[in-house]
């Protein structure tokens, strides 16, 4: 056999094998390969490939004509109808191209959104027994998870993981690289059916304290840092200064718990560490339902377990209310829950848009059917069967639909390619989205159905007319125009309504985004740069405080820097710390401790972010390890737990046994967290120096552009300790922007659909008016000859057009009101019945409609009565 490199491409060869004449296939294929190899040697691969493709196309055409000759009469007739339709459409290129473009855009957008819905919501998760996998609560403690595992009968496997990026430092020559890391309990990946490229998954005993430390690498890291070394298993790498044995490599497609993970460590359980074991939440769990169990029954069982959990937990006992907030939900819903609303909205939007596109094409076909009515009538008079005429007319619709669907599929693919990078960061399961067979099949069905529906109206109309009267009218009759007008007018009104619905929804979302953008987060982000600094987890906390001071001193001395501070977590950052908290002065049920957010911050934190001090003092340099333990609460916490009195002097502490009390020394302003639009929660602060954190965020305020400062900050941190990597260096504004990124993306997509719908409505209005002017040229001429001014004529055209636009806008408003229920969940700071939107959008659509009417109106005004009279 020939060298494989000299063989033609497999796809084309595969196609060729389908179309070669029976019995001669292998022989001819071999001859083509020989010729291909000769061409390759002589003319190079581009020309040889082009030649080979031409050969395949020629055999395909030959096979098609062969099978047509052999096909049953009906099939031949159908192909004949399609060819006829193609020819007749090619004689009306403007109509053909407009209709195809309209359908392609409508179908393309629908297919694109459907591919998102399919990939994210409909398709089963790519895990074995995916329909039995459930997410158990949100953020249980490690100890509680152990109890659930022991007691719950309806769950036959419960495995936990930490849904925070742990971030470990991988040592490399002269520096350290920060790696996105998740902690997962052994058995979790087995339950989800992970299959490592090399090596194995974690073993149960590997999570026990004191064992050899092990890690699993992601394929990306393995390739980038270890040259895809197949012998990696068993090798030792240094993470956070400690040796870890590599036990396996997971393929790049593995995206659990988070798509960004580069490395996984086993999640250990150390019951002797009572504080973290029972006190720190944040553990999430995946479980498999035992056979016969349903999520609801499992939830019942877990609720019944609640008293046991409270009894077993030595630290705190949440109230039954707290337990009732969470439950057992199918894993798919847990992973994708919060995008449902947005995807549903987009799906509804494209459906509306597709309807508008369908109406547009129907309008075009009706116009054309009317123009051709004399011809059709003539053929009917000559004896052409009605079935035959109807078939031809429907064939046009089907052909437009099929070709439009093909165009739509190409558009959807291109659109997805453009969107994919954005989607990956914004929505769960984005890597599973593709324009695949299901989506293409749906596009094809949508195309044919849309085409047939669009062609149905003109077909029915074409069959109804009486050939004799049509021929007598001689193609000039006013009656025809009027009859046609009723139907097209309804369609155009519908298009306007669709445009109003979409534009109004977009406007509401945009206003909501703007309102969110105006919301004061409670601190200043202007000119503030943030960066994460990760200390090796082995580092001595008391040594860390020295490093903190070094970093703050060096960064603070950089030119242009007006303030520098460190914090264990910041609002809109990746992590937040939240603990069940004892608040002594407040009358709290010891069994219902509140979970309260808390941040560890350096003294300059409040000044750097411009958080106002309302009472007492901020932290000072004396609030260091060994000093009196102090805390600051924000105004919401003060109001909630010390109503009508000052919290200064009050006490507060973490839940674990032996945790010290903190003395409240100050009250500061409240800040937003996570989402700008959400209600602010209570929050308290402790000095970072008294509570060192392994991962800190550096916030630096500057008079200039924050990003310009990044290299200098990096250098300053490296001066303090070259082994400390700086990651996620970003202006603070961008962190906040990212929290609204998904709404922004939804709004942009919706805006695109709205613009298309508006254009379609515009085209529709224009089409109707232009057609009316063309048909009534004679009438207009007569009126002008009788003394009507051109302004009167033009305004008649305008008013006639607005008779379409106004009812359409009203219907659209009704539709927008109906859509408000879908939208409400996504709106912040704007009512779904926003008066500005309700008034503004119809006005905008009206203006657009007038713009669309301008050309026909001008044409009507320029009719020359003399010319008209001479012609008739």
């Amino acid at each position, binding site marked *: 056999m020939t060298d494989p490199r000299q063989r033609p491409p497999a796809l084309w060869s595969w196609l060729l094998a389908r179309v070669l*004449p029976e019995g*001669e296939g*292998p*022989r*001819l294929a*071999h*001859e*083509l390969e*020989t*010729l291909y190899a*000769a061409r390759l040697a002589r003319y190079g691969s581009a020309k040889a490939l082009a*030649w080979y493709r*031409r*050969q395949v196309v*020629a*055999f395909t*055409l*030959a096979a098609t004509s062969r099978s047509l000759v052999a096909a049953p009469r009906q099939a031949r007739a159908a192909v004949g109808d399609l060819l006829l339709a193609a020819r007749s459409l090619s004689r009306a290129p403007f109509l053909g191209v407009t209709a195809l473009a309209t359908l392609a855009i409508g179908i393309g957008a629908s297919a694109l959104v459907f591919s998102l819905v399919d990939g994210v919501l409909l398709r089963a998760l790519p895990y074995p027994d995916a329909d039995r996998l459930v997410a158990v609560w949100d953020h249980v403690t490690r100890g509680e998870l152990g109890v659930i595992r022991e007691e719950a009968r309806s769950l036959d496997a419960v495995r936990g993981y930490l849904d925070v990026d742990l971030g470990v430092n991988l040592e490399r020559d002269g520096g350290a690289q920060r790696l996105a890391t998740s902690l997962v309990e052994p058995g979790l990946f087995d339950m989800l059916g992970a299959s490592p490229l090399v090596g194995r998954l974690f073993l149960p005993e590997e999570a026990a304290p004191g064992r050899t430390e092990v890690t699993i690498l992601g394929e990306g890291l393995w390739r980038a840092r270890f040259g895809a070394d197949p012998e990696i298993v068993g090798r030792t790498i240094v993470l956070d200064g400690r040796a870890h044995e590599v036990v396996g490599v997971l393929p790049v497609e593995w995206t659990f718990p988070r798509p960004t993970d580069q490395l996984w460590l086993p999640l250990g359980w150390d019951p002797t560490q009572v504080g973290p074991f029972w006190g720190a939440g944040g553990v999430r769990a995946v479980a498999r339902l035992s056979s016969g169990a349903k999520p609801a029954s499992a939830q019942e069982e877990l609720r019944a377990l609640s008293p046991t959990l409270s009894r077993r937990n030595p630290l705190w006992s949440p109230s039954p209310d707290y337990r009732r907030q969470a439950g057992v939900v199918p894993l798919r819903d847990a992973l994708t829950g919060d995008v449902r609303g947005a995807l549903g909205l987009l799906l509804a939007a494209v459906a509306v848009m597709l309807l508008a596109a369908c109406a547009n094409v129907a309008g075009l076909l009706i116009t054309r059917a009317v123009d051709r009515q004399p011809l059709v009538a003539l053929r009917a008079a000559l004896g052409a069967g009605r079935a035959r005429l109807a078939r031809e007319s429907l064939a046009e619709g089907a052909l437009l639909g099929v070709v439009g669907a093909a165009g739509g599929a190409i558009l959807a693919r291109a659109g997805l390619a453009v969107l994919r990078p954005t989607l990956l960061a914004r929505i769960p399961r984005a890597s599973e989205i593709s324009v695949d067979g299901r989506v293409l099949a749906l596009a094809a069905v949508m195309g044919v159905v849309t085409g047939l529906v669009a062609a149905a109206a003109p077909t029915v109309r074409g069959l109804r007319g009486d050939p004799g009267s049509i021929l007598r009218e001689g193609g000039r009759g006013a009656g025809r125009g009027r009859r046609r007008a009723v139907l097209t007018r309804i369609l155009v009104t519908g298009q306007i309504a669709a445009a109003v619905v979409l534009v109004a929804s977009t406007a509401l979302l945009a206003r909501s985004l703007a309102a969110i953008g105006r919301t004061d987060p409670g601190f200043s982000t202007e000119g503030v740069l943030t960066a994460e600094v990760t200390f090796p987890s082995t580092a001595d906390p008391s040594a860390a405080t020295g490093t903190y001071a070094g970093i703050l001193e060096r960064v603070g001395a950089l030119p242009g820097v007006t303030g520098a501070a460190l914090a264990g977590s910041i609002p809109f950052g990746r992590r937040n710390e939240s603990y069940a908290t004892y608040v002594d002065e407040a009358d709290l049920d010891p069994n219902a401790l509140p979970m309260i957010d808390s941040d560890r911050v350096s003294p300059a934190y409040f000044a750097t972010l411009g958080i106002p001090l309302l009472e007492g003092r901020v932290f000072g340099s004396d609030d260091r390890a060994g000093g009196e333990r102090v805390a600051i609460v924000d105004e919401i916490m003060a109001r909630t737990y010390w109503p009508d009195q000052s919290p200064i002097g009050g006490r507060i502490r973490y839940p674990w046994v032996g945790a010290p009390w903190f003395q409240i020394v100050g009250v500061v302003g409240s800040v937003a967290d996570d989402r700008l639009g959400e209600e602010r929660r209570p929050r308290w602060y402790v000095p970072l120096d008294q509570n060192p954190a392994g991962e800190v965020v550096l916030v630096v305020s500057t008079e200039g552009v924050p990003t310009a400062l990044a290299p200098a900050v990096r250098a300053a941190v490296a001066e303090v300790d070259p082994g400390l990597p700086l990651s996620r260096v970003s202006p603070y504004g961008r962190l906040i922007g990212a929290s609204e990124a998904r709404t922004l993306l939804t709004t942009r997509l919706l805006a695109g659909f709205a613009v298309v719908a508006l254009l379609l409505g515009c085209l529709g209005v224009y089409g109707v008016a232009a057609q009316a002017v063309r048909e009534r040229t004679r009438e207009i001429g007569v009126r002008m000859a009788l003394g009507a001014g051109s302004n009167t004529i033009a305004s008649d055209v305008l008013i006639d057009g607005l008779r379409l636009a106004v009812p359409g806008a009203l219907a659209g408003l009704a539709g927008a009101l109906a859509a408000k229920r879908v939208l409400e969940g996504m709106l912040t700071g704007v009512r779904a019945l926003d008066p500005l939107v309700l008034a503004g959008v119809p006005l905008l659509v009206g203006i657009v409609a007038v713009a669309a009417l301008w050309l026909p109106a001008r044409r009507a005004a320029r009719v020359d009565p003399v010319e008209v009279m001479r012609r008739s």
Partner: protein
Amino acid sequence: MVTSLREAIGMGRDTLGELEHQTLLAALRLGDGAYTAPIVTELEERTGRAHTLAAVYIVLRRLEDKGLVRSSLEDTPGGRDRRYFGVTPAGLERLREARLAYENLWAGLDVLGERRS
């Protein structure tokens, strides 16, 4: 009933088409080595026109139906078989007629500026 345009306007159904004519000649030139691929190459090299294998193959089968070529399957040293085409006496006769017809038509013409007898 008239079944084709060619018949309707009185072209005998056994007139040689141009590609049929050229394919027969190419097969003749190749002699024993005439199977589809070399015929395509021969046509391309001699006439400068690249026909697709599909076109030439269809022409060969049509010529076979008309009895102007005959084909046979033969094993090659490589172990796979090939369909070789040979021009039949009827095919040779048809080529001769065609050549004679062309020569008669060309006789005495010098429109192309070259001497022909």
